[in-house]
């Protein structure tokens, strides 16, 4: 049973999804539901003996294209509605023990093209207003399946974090005539000390306003609103900078580095968002090799983050760990 309930105190929607309590939780590798189904072996969710990249509807979705009616009716200020939406899982590789950081740049390039395809297809679904592509990596951020995968939520509304960014970007454009994220990228490149990596199309940096010690943003240098406007070169160069940043993450503490990855693009509701700008945000929870950054009183209860580190120092640490990317496939 799932439904959308409106929080009048914060002015935002949340989903209840009671069936998700029963979802598969950290199964042993031999019983991973996201591995290919090998002949004579445990039948997984993928009914084929091999695959490259796969996208499919989540077996335990928070949102559905054909949702059931809510368990209760709206009443006064308490609004409830069916949980329209789409929840997809994207499998990055058939190999259970790998991670995006460990994949060759060619595999990340394929994934970028799949992300674009999923964005374009889900944006065409009638009730979808926002397509959110993300990855939760590592038990530290609540992962329940270790197989390398990401997710896509196609929401019937613009989610609150993106809405807040849209408002800030619109105000900045009205006040200055320019794009806020274009200005952030220009500012970070000019200052230089918070830059982690760059290529012709993208800049990766720990922003001036980072909330987490290793919070990293990757932004397009051109003013683009979504994957839909990417050139072939930008698709390939996004794969390159992702490879560089993710590999650098793994080198910080010489371990597979947990993170939440959020891809922020313009909404898919058909309105004009020329003031918004494509970027990816990483929120890694680690602050040292053995300590996590928790969302405690000030962060969770008041919304004010306290970063125990300086972005300029952490960016220098990461920058030193970035190495060139080598493509094995050439034209």
């Amino acid at each position: 049973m799932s439904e959308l309930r409106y929080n009048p105190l914060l002015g935002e929607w949340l989903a209840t999804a009671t069936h998700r309590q029963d979802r598969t939780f950290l199964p042993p590798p031999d019983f991973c539901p996201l591995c290919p189904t090998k002949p004579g072996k445990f039948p997984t969710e993928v009914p084929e003996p091999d695959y490259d990249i796969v996208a499919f509807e989540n077996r335990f979705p928070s949102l559905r294209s054909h949702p059931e009616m809510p368990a209760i009716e709206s009443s006064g200020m308490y609004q409830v509605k069916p949980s329209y939406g789409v929840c997809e899982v994207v499998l990055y590789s058939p190999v259970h023990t790998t991670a995006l950081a460990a994949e060759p740049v060619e595999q990340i390039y394929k994934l970028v093209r799949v992300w674009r395809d999923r964005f374009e297809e889900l944006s065409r679904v009638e009730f979808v207003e926002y397509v959110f592509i993300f990855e939760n990596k590592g038990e530290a951020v609540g992962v329940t399946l270790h197989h390398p995968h990401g997710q896509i939520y196609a929401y019937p509304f613009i989610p609150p974090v993106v809405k807040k960014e849209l408002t800030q970007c619109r105000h900045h454009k009205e006040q200055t005539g320019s794009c806020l994220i274009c200005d952030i990228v220009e500012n970070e490149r000019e200052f230089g000390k918070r830059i982690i990596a760059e290529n012709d199309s993208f800049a990766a940096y720990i922003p001036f306003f980072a909330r987490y010690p290793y919070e990293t943003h990757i932004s397009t240098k051109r003013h683009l609103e979504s994957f839909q406007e990417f050139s072939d070169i930008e698709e390939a160069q996004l794969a390159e900078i992702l490879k560089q940043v993710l590999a650098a993450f793994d080198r910080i503490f010489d371990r597979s580095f947990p993170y939440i990855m959020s891809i922020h693009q313009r909404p898919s509701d058909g309105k004009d968002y020329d003031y918004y700008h494509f970027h990816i945000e990483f929120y890694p929870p680690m602050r040292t090799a053995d300590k996590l950054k928790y969302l405690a009183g000030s962060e969770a209860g008041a919304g004010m983050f306290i970063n125990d580190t300086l972005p300029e120092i952490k960016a220098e640490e990461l920058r030193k760990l970035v190495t060139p990317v080598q493509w094995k496939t050439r034209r």
Partner: protein
Amino acid sequence: MSKEQSTNEGMHKRRIQLADGRYMIFYTFDTEALAPPYKTQTATEQPTKESAERENV
């Protein structure tokens, strides 16, 4: 399971329907579609611990 296929410049999509009605899309790529559309760097990439492990699989 029902199936449907389409192609987009070296990227191929094969869509199937699972027994419970959910869709699943298999993506495959032509080898030549994996080369970046520009001249690439020649420096050798420093492998991470994980990539080194994977290459040994």
